[in-house]
């Protein structure tokens, strides 16, 4: 690893470099906040900004902690998976001996760590580095600009207009009213369009449970988020009530059922959401699922299979998008660190339950429609549809 130091002639360094960072392009920006000067800055506390520089989402369950060695060790894995060339550290002058040692340990796979000093702070930063026993190479500002080309602004993604956080948690009788009261007009319009469609279809569908499920699944075929499924469910429930039928639903299980009978159609936004995870196994499990690896073959995927897929950039003829490739590679490197041999399992869950659990949890947290229900090996409750598939249709008359 090369350690460099540079400073702009004038101006605010982060503003001058805005738009040049993207972990996918191998350039990360680490902001060491001034607040951290007030308390003891340790290798532990510096781990959090480093996770942020990698674009990790701390509000995702499974990505919330930097307080164990195990979680912190994922930093180096991700740097390696992203093939990070440049890590640019702002405000590095406040970092102490121990913090710098921690940072260099995390950033071991990075090609070059550049400390960017604000104009006038060059010597303070140099001093901080020297006290930790590192001599930085002074480089030109122009050289840094050359290394970090301005990222082309990506084409505006067609994001779903609403997600699960916009939907009210209440009985279906009040769903439409609460959705209107708790959302902006445009958002409600998008929700209501789906609601009305489900409502009008359910007014004519034959009141038989499997026909109803088929009708709902038909409407959700193109859904990119579980939120649309939820709205479809609510509209259907309400319409069936007016016809004298009560469609009881366990919301989470229903979303699982509807997801499991729909072919996976991942979008860029989905892949980006999976990039929010700190741990590697859960997004890797989800990635293989979304790339249409047969569900019952997921647990049997070996390291050599993955090696071959990564070499071919494809799984069974289906191209692996670059965003997915990083996720799969991250877990591959992780497993190698754990000492896995080519014949070993790639995902290495302790049990089939662990695999199902990873898919279910990832669906709950990211809203990507996926489910591993066919991998569940339970024969209980077959008589109770509400438990089995999350839905039950009963007459009200």
């Amino acid at each position: 690893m090369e350690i460099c130091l540079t400073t702009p002639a004038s101006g605010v360094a982060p503003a001058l470099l805005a738009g040049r960072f993207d972990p996918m392009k191998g350039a990360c920006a680490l902001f060491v906040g001034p607040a951290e000067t007030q308390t003891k800055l340790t290798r532990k506390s510096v781990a959090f900004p480093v996770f942020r520089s990698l674009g990790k989402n701390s509000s995702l369950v499974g990505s919330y902690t930097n307080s164990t060695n195990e979680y912190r060790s994922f930093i180096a894995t991700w740097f390696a998976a992203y093939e990070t060339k440049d890590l640019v550290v702002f405000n590095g002058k406040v970092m102490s001996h121990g913090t710098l040692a921690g940072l260099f340990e995390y950033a071991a796979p990075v090609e070059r760590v550049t400390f960017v000093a604000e104009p006038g702070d060059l010597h303070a930063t140099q001093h901080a580095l020297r006290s930790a026993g590192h001599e930085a190479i002074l480089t030109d500002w122009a050289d840094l600009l050359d290394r970090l080309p301005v990222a082309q602004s990506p084409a505006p993604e067609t994001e779903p207009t609403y997600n699960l956080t916009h939907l009210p948690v209440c009985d279906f009788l009040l769903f439409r009213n609460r959705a209107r009261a708790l959302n902006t007009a445009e958002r409600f319009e998008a929700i209501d369009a789906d609601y009305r469609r489900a409502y009008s279809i359910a007014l004519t569908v034959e009141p038989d449970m499997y026909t109803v499920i088929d009708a709902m699944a038909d409407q959700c075929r193109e859904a990119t988020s579980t939120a649309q499924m939820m709205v479809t469910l609510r509209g259907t429930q309400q319409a069936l009530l007016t016809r004298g039928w009560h469609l009881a639903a366990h919301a989470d299980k229903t979303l699982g059922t509807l997801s499991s009978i729909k072919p996976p159609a991942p979008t860029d936004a989905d892949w980006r959401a999976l990039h929010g995870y700190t741990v590697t196994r859960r997004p890797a499990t989800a990635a293989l699922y979304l790339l249409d690896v047969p569900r019952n073959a997921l647990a049997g995927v070996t390291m050599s299979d993955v090696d071959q897929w990564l070499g071919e950039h494809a799984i069974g003829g289906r191209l692996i998008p670059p965003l997915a490739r990083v996720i799969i590679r991250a877990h591959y490197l992780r497993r190698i660190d754990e000492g896995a041999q080519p014949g070993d399992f790639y995902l290495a869950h302790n049990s089939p339950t662990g695999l199902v659990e990873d898919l279910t949890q990832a669906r709950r947290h990211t809203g990507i429609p996926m489910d591993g229900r066919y991998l569940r090996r339970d024969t209980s409750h077959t008589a109770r549809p509400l438990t089995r598939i999350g839905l039950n249709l009963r007459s009200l008359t």
Partner: protein
Amino acid sequence: MSTPIDNRALVWAFNQGTYSVTGFAALLDIGADTLEGLLRGNPRPEGIRLSTLLAISEKLGLPLNALFPAPPDSPDPEPEPPRLPDGTGTSSDERGAGSDVVADAEQLIACLYADGRTHTTSTDLATAFEWTLDRLTAAGTEAIRRLAPAGLTLTRSHGEYAIVPTRNHQDAQTALDNRHATERGLTHSHYKAVYQLLQGQNVSVSNSPVQRQRLLGGLANLGIVTNNLDPALTPEALEGLTQ
């Protein structure tokens, strides 16, 4: 402590007119005692209700922040003492006292916060931590400063330490409790009753009138029917029907 309220604008406005104190107080819609105190510059901004300040600023046509003095310039925080080039320079020895208070405050907050609402005496704390009471007091003062932005404070009354919210959020808490108490999941019978109401029939879900009233009361609590005695669907529930 903060500085007293900036009453210059108020005094100026009072001197313009020919009002008595009581007349001016009536104009501003505040008590004469309060006005007298304000003119003397007695109360501090946090001692006056916001509605009073708002009334004053509205009647006099002043922006609200004209009543608050500008904050004094605070000196820059001390820079970290430089280390020796060989890395042996000790920063902790030199700024020892300052960072100790911070660490102490962290420890105090952690212990009290984990303890919930139980009040713990200063003696217990000092004994457990093996601190002097002076050190505990200093840590407490630092803890108050650090808790303030989160809307919390450390109370030290009669030797008991506790972390409590700065403002009284009792109304909000009551509203939340009420919601938790009245909102229950609906059963098949509830939906049956709703269907009968939709069809314009009488609700005949339960054989027992008392049970029926309780069932309708549950729906009324959720805001789905108007009341339990003469039930009808509310506009909120009817909104779900799109046709």
